[in-house]
């Protein structure tokens, strides 16, 4: 007995291919667009709309690898529009803390103040941005919106050795009590109500620069740097130093199809052609047969479809609704938390507009 699924009208094969795949021929990719309009296949009686139940049924996430810094996962059943929104938000709209103001008391190094300040801004800070508030220009710096780091180094000669020849990021000391500048006055650049150490969520190690061995400046004996860096919360859209990711990217799942059986010398040639080892040779009796062993490795260099007649034997394509997503965190938040934060931000955008149009 036929089920209701069997009765559903199907698109002809060539249209289904255009709808679900990007075909990568030797000269150029084709069918790169995604067909969004719900009535696009009305003539075939095929409904191209998206209902939530269908979305829930087809959506899938598989984690490929995960550690402190990187995550790679497959996200299946979403459109490029949504995947790209997540990517864009990850790069430009998930907040982190970064040094925004640098008060320099002394700098006799060869690195100019402004260059030094820029370098300090780019240091990734290991502090959960969710514990802090944004600081506007008019607002006073307090324990909820500013993190203060102090750098005080003097380069000296000790016998043969030069001390503090290179200033590393672990010499940036966190001041949980707030700024100590200006030195000889009572009113300081920050007015903390309490020490930041008692702030809920601050780990026992305190706030540090993510990596201890970033070279901030180089000094010669007699030179010194004394400064304070004030970190505030911000987003990558304002300045890339606030971007929480080294990069966030996705690629569509590659699909490699052999259009005919490839045997013998041709099979060996095919294995030779591929620089990333997508193909393997299978021995069936005495015949050597090519098979697609690792399609995920495919970078779509299209070497395998180049040359005489090869475009007839191999077809390269990408699956339009299957994304291999990679996030490389700079360290403030774990990569899997970054992704959920990005989703929350997209939801906030929707909610904002909802409240604004329901007046």
């Amino acid at each position, binding site marked *: 007995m036929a089920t209701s699924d069997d009765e559903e009208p199907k698109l002809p094969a060539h249209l289904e291919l255009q709808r679900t795949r990007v075909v990568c021929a030797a000269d150029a990719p084709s069918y790169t667009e995604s067909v969004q309009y719900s009535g696009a296949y009305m003539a075939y009686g095929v409904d191209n709309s998206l209902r939530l139940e269908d979305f829930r049924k087809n959506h899938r996430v598989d984690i490929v690898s995960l550690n402190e810094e990187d995550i790679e996962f497959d996200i299946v059943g979403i459109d490029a529009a949504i995947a790209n929104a997540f990517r864009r938000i990850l790069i430009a709209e998930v907040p982190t803390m970064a040094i925004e103001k640098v008060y320099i008391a002394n700098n006799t190094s060869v690195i100019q103040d402004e260059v030094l300040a820029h370098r300090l801004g780019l240091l990734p800070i290991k502090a959960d941005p969710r514990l802090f508030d944004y600081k506007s220009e008019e607002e006073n710096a307090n324990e909820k919106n500013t993190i203060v780091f102090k750098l005080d180094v003097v380069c000296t000669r000790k016998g043969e050795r030069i001390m503090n020849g290179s200033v590393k990021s672990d010499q940036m000391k966190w001041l949980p009590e707030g700024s100590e500048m200006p030195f000889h006055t009572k009113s300081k650049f920050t007015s903390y109500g309490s020490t930041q150490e008692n702030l809920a969520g601050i780990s026992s190690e305190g706030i540090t620069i993510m990596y201890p061995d970033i070279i901030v400046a180089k000094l010669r004996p007699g030179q010194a740097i004394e400064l304070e860096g004030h970190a505030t919360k911000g987003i990558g859209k304002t300045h890339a130093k606030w971007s929480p990711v080294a990069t966030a990217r996705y690629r569509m799942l590659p699909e490699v199809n052999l259009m005919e059986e490839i045997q013998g010398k041709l099979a060996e040639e095919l294995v030779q052609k591929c620089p990333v080892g997508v193909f393997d040779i299978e021995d069936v009796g005495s015949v050597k047969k090519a098979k697609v062993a690792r399609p995920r490795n495919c970078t779509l260099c299209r070497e395998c479809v180049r040359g005489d007649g090869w475009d007839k034997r191999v077809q390269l394509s990408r699956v339009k609704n299957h994304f291999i997503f990679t996030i490389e965190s700079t360290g403030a938040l774990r990569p*899997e938390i970054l*992704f959920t934060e990005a989703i929350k931000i997209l939801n906030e955008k929707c909610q904002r507009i909802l409240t604004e149009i329901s007046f």
Partner: protein
Amino acid sequence: MAATMELGSDTDPRNATFSISDEDHTLGNSLRFVLNKDPRVAFCGYSVPHPSENRINVRVQTTGIPARDVLKDALNDLTAMNQHVMTTFDSAVERFKANQGMTELSMKSGVTSQHSGSVKKP
């Protein structure tokens, strides 16, 4: 007003242009996707009128019901989709961490101590 929202047409509620400030392709393209997937929408498109102005215009034309209602539904649908992606993602992470914890445990019982690194359980 920090963010304004205006209907492009007073005479016909089925066709409207929504001007959304402080938004860009991130929301514009996802919203267009969700709206186009709605069978009640006859046409939907968006534009960034000027690159140095932080604003998008979303045009919605429907087959009958007011465009504003369709836009509301689209925003709710997008939120629901996001919510679903989030729960699916979270459970996938949980599953991965559990599996990794298992392999690490079996390695630990072997010889040397392993770095506990990424699989710290709360």
